C-alpha cells in the first residue's frame, strides 16, 4: 500500500515537473517561433475579402505569397493572381542577418519602386512586413500569461521593438505552443494604441513535421477595415528558383 502511494506520489511529481518544463520562457517561445518559420521554400495562395467599416465589401481577389526563411535570411514575394489585372502587381522583400546587422530590401513591380514594409498592399490589410514576423527577433520578450482564442488555449507574449522610432512599438501575440502558431497578434504604436490585429480562424496541419498553419485569418486595422484571408492552396516544399526573387536583384542593379 505504502509502495503504491509512493509510486503515485512520484508519478504526480513527474507530471508536475513535466508541466512546468512544458511552459517555455518568453525567449524560448520567440526562438521556437523563429525556427517554426524556417523553410527552404513555401507558397500559399489566398483569397482576400476586404470589408469596410460601413459593411461594404470590395470585390474579392486572390494573391500568392512565396517565401524562404533561415536563420540568416528571410525572403518573401507577394503577387497578385486574380483578377487578371492584379497579376502585374508584385512585391518582394528580404531581411538579411549578418552577425547583428539586419539589412532590409523591398522592391515592387507595378507600381514600381521601393515600398515600405509596413505599408498595406492591394488596398487591403495585407502588410508584407508582418508576414516576416520580425517581432520574434526583438530582444525584449515578456510572457503575459495564458488566454484563449476561439476556444484554443494560448500563451500571451509581449514583444517590444528595439527600434524606438519604428511605427510599431509593441506586438502582443497569443501563441499555441503545440501548433507553433500565433492565434492572435496585436500591433501597437508608441502610445499603446492598437494599430491592427490578426486572428486565426482555422488552421491546417503541416504536411510534414509538427505544428499547424493558418488557413483562415481575419485582419482588422485601426479604421475598422477587415481583411478576411482564406488560404485555399499551398505548397510547403515550393521550388525556389533564381527567378523567384529576381525583382529584388533588379532593384539592386537599378541602384
Amino acid at each position: 500500500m505504502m509502495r503504491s502511494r509512493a509510486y503515485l506520489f512520484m508519478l504526480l511529481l513527474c507530471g508536475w515537473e513535466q508541466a512546468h518544463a512544458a511552459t517555455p520562457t518568453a525567449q524560448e517561445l520567440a526562438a521556437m517561433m523563429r525556427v517554426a518559420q524556417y523553410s527552404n521554400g513555401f507558397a500559399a495562395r489566398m483569397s482576400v475579402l476586404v470589408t469596410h467599416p460601413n459593411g461594404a465589401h470590395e470585390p474579392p481577389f486572390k494573391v500568392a505569397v512565396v517565401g524562404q526563411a533561415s536563420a540568416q535570411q528571410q525572403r518573401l514575394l507577394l503577387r497578385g493572381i486574380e483578377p487578371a489585372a492584379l497579376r502585374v502587381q508584385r512585391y518582394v522583400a528580404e531581411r538579411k542577418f549578418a552577425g547583428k546587422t539586419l539589412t532590409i530590401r523591398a522592391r515592387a513591380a507595378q507600381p514600381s519602386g521601393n515600398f515600405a514594409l509596413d505599408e498595406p498592399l492591394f488596398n487591403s490589410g495585407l502588410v508584407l512586413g508582418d508576414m516576416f514576423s520580425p517581432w520574434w527577433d526583438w530582444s525584449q520578450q515578456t510572457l503575459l500569461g495564458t488566454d484563449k482564442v476561439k476556444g484554443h488555449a494560448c500563451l500571451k507574449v509581449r514583444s517590444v521593438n528595439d527600434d524606438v522610432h519604428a511605427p510599431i512599438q509593441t506586438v502582443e501575440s497569443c501563441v499555441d505552443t503545440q501548433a507553433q502558431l500565433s492565434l492572435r497578434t496585436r500591433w501597437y504604436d508608441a502610445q499603446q494604441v492598437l494599430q491592427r490585429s490578426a486572428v486565426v480562424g482555422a488552421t491546417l496541419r503541416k504536411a510534414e513535421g509538427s505544428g499547424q498553419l493558418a488557413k483562415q485569418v481575419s485582419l482588422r486595422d485601426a479604421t475598422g477595415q477587415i481583411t478576411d484571408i482564406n488560404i485555399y492552396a499551398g505548397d510547403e516544399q515550393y521550388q525556389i528558383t533564381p527567378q523567384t526573387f529576381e525583382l529584388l536583384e533588379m532593384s539592386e542593379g537599378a541602384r
Partner: protein
Amino acid sequence: MNLFRFALDNLTRRPARTSLTISAIALGIAAVVALTSISWGFEASWQKANDARGTDLIVTRVASENTMPAPFLAEKVQPTLAQLPHVQAVVGLLSEMLTVSPDAPPTFVFGWAYGSYLWEHLRLVEGRWPHDDAEPVVVIGSLAAEMLHKKIGDQVEIEGTTFQVVGIYASNAVVENAALIMTLSQAQQVTDKPGKVNVLNIKVDSSTTEADLRAIKAQVQQTLPGFAAITSGELVSQNAVVRISKAMSNATILIASLVGALVVFNTMLMSINERTREIGILLALGWQRRTLMGLIFSEAMLLSLVGGAVGIVLGVLSAVGLEHLELMRGKIDAVFSVPFFVAVLALSVLLGILGGLYPALKASKLLPSAALRAE
C-alpha cells in the same frame, strides 16, 4: 382480438402523442439515412473515379491526410516506380479545388498527363480533347458545364489565366463530371507548381496478382522513404473529408439512437402510467405478465417501425434534395441500398426494444390489487 391489433388500438387512442413520437423517431432516422448515404456516396464517388481511370495503385506522400495530398516533384519518384516489376504506366495527376466562376462554388480542376491512360475512360460528348500538352484549354464535365453555364468556345478564368473550353465530357464518377480537366503541365503552370503532382497513378499489367501488388507496395515503402503506394480505396478512406463525413454520420447515428430510444421510453412510460387501472384489469382477467410485456413491446416496436419507415423516406428525399442544391451539385452522390434500409429498420426496432424495456418491466411487475386502486 390479437396482441398486434390491441397494441395498434392503444396507439391510435392517442393520435397526437403517437404522431409526435413517430415524427421524432422519423427525424432521427432521416438524419441517419441522409448523412450515411451522403458519406458513403462521397467515398464511393472518389473510388469510382479512381477505378474508372484504371488505376491500380496510387503513390502519394505518407502524411497526405489533408483534403488534397501534398504536392511533390514527380521526377524524383516517377523513374523508380516505372522500373518496378509489372508496372505498365506511371502517370502524374495534380488537382485543386478552385473558383472558376464568381457565381459558382469552388470546382475541382484536374491536371492529367497529356496522352496518358487517365483520359481513356472519359466519353467526349461535344468538342475535342486538347491537341497537345501546351495548349491552354480545358475540357469540362457535363455537370460542371451545366453548373457554370459554359459551352464549347466559352472561356473560363482560372487563377487569373484564361482558358478556352474545347470539349465537354461525361464520366461514370460524379466527381469527374463536376470537374474541369486540363493537361498536367497547364495545371502545374496555373497553380505555380512546376513539375509537381498530388499523386502518381500506377497501372499494372494483366498478369499482376494481389501478392504482386503487395510486393510493389513494400518496394515503394523501402525505396522511396516518405511515400506510400496505396489502393484507391485506401486513399479515399484516408481523405480528411471522407473521415469527417464518416465521423459525422457515426455521431448522428449515436445521437439519433439515444434520442429515439428516449422518445419511445418517454411515450411508453406515460402510456403505462395512464393505463395503470387498465393493466390491473387485464391482470385480474388472467393475462400473463409475459403477454403484458409483449403488448408493451409491440406498441414500442410499432412506433419505432413506423417512425423508421417514415424516416427512411424522409432521409432519401433529403439526400436527393441536397444533391440538387446548387451549392452541392456534383459534390454529393448519395448511395442507397436495400441492406442499408434493412439495417436502418433493424436500428428502429432496436430503439423500440430499448425504449420499451423499462416500461414493459414496470407494467409486468404491477400487482392487480394495487393497479385497480390507482386513480
